[in-house]
């Protein structure tokens, strides 16, 4: 259908919740850009509804959420909202500080991985790349009759 391999991956790098530190997410955005991806970058304090709208309009493949304090606690709500809007194929990854005992709930809610602050550049880029390919494969054929 679409020649997916030639198109750059589109990744949303964002922060929901209340934390305002984005040094890490800016650096990750630069990593991904330098790896040839198109990064839609938002500053902190985005709302879940805003993120879903953005992910829809921008047709993103992957969402990277930068999280500190308790921000990750609302990510499952974001996963629900994405599913409700028909964005099941979009893969989500979290970067930041998440207490160990709360990681399980995030993975159960559909988050693909939680990166800690020491994660290496190549690890992040390779993983996001793989997620992006998965996301594209998971899309439904837009011209098929069975689309909702």
């Amino acid at each position: 259908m679409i020649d997916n391999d030639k198109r750059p991956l589109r990744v949303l790098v964002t922060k929901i919740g209340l934390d305002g530190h984005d040094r890490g997410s800016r650096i990750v955005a630069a990593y991904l850009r330098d790896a040839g991806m198109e990064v839609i970058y938002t500053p902190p304090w985005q709302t879940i509804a805003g993120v879903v709208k953005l992910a829809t309009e921008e047709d993103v493949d992957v969402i990277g959420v930068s999280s500190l304090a308790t921000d990750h606690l609302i990510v499952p709500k974001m996963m629900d909202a994405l599913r409700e809007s028909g964005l099941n194929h979009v893969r989500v990854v979290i970067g930041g500080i998440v207490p160990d005992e709360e990681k399980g709930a995030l993975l159960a809610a559909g988050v693909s991985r939680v990166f800690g602050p020491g994660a290496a550049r190549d690890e992040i880029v390779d993983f996001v790349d793989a997620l992006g390919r998965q996301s594209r494969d998971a899309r439904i054929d837009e011209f098929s009759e069975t689309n909702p």
Partner: protein
Amino acid sequence: MTHTAVQLPLPGFEQARGEWRSQYSRHMRDEKPIRNRSGIEIQPLYSPRDWSGDRYLEDLGFPGQFPLTRGIYPSMHRGRTWTQRQLIGLGTPEDYNKRVRRIIGAGATAISLLPCCSGFRGIDCDEVDPVLLGTCGTVINTTDHMDRALEEVPIGEISTAMNDPSPFTLLAFTLGVARRRGIDWRSVTGTSNQSDYISHFIANHQFYRLSLPGSRRVLLDHIEFCRRHVPNWNPVSVVGQHMQQAGATPAETMGFTLSTAIQYAEDCIERGMDIDDVLRRFTFFFDISISMFEEVAKFRAGRRIWARIARDRLGAKDPACWRFKFHGQTSGVDLTQQQPLNNIARVSIQAMAGILSGLQSLHTDAYDEAIACPSEETARVAVATQNILREEARLCDVIDPLGGSYYVERLTDQMEAEIEAVIAKIDAAGGMYKAAEAGLVQTMIGDSALAFQEQVDAGDRKIVGVNCYQVEEDPTVPPADRPDADAMNRHVERFRAFKRERSQEQVAKALDALARAANTPNENTFEKVVEAVEAGVTHGEVIGCLRRELGFGHPLIVA
């Protein structure tokens, strides 16, 4: 500018040095140059060749004497130790009150209040998912909340730092509390610790609160109001912290911060304020990184440059205006999640650097700062660190003890050159306001942040436990200390009830007056903020009103 090229009359000096150098080189083949965070190359040894004391009076002076390099007061910490001002903020006003009374009981003479991130975002607690509230700061949206937070706290005697940006509702609440308790506003002392809207725009996303021109207006109103009605309050704190945390090098940070101070001073002069009146109440707020000597040099150079700027460039006549008064906070960015106990060592070094730099007040981070808001126990260790440095290491005994070190003096000169180059660049861009608007500063900071990260990634910049000396442990992130969910829900409910029960008419009138003032150049918006909170207007409502009238801030993404 200051540089001391040295003519040495010491006989035999060059020969001895030559011998050392050749032996050194034999041991140190293939040595790569070492640079500090500001990019200055660091030599293995410094000697009278690098600095001599023959310009002692012009470049250093004695403590309290122009150019104040060695200290802004004659007796410094030996006369009066630095103020221990620990930042506290968590949960409900009652949570804050409990903790602050404990540290006052333990001897603290100054307090600091950090509001919840929802406050920074400019919204009230009923506008956000409750699970996010109170994790990194205290939820204070009304005068009542402040009253409860400061119960039994003698605000007429103790200095309070309020860590909120414009329009400074926390001070407005505090003034309301003072009025209720019959305390004269002239006895209210402290600082509007986050009044530096330019640094927020650059590095702390405060564009969501107010537009840049709107923030400029509100700050000037705030300064004028405080001069008139709260004369012992410091309305201006020029903040280097956010920029350094965002990745600016120490030299860049000092350059940007001094440029911002120049911008604010010039704005005040343009408004017709008297420069001496205004500069007397300027304070600074900096991060202290673990690059110890670099930080000492940064602050000594900053002191010297500021004295000259204040006297010669801005024309202040009162020597009190030449003093670079600063609060230092140990830098959380240097702390690691891996092996968090190591952070105690890091904080000790950072604190030592700050003390040796001659700061006026100090906050030491808790060792779990990288993970969550500090617990009682870790906060205690942070305070003990300061006590040990003072009582056991006796760092207060000597003023500017590193002064005269060939290294430190040479590095101070070099940092001065770097800092002045940054100031010149900002001047060429038309000043800090324009530079921030155009994204110039953000670009420079972004470049420095990326460069630093690349060094860490490549293993050139070593961080123990992260890219060297790693331990096979899974870096465990313990459960975080969070506010009690029920207590927070009750707090929000009580707030909702308050909104329902207050006089809607008075609230509407006060908001109208605030909106009108925002649209009238000669009126004082902060005065109207103070009146509005008296009428029961909330934090979020004040900001919402000003955003509507003064403009919505717009983020500037520089990639």
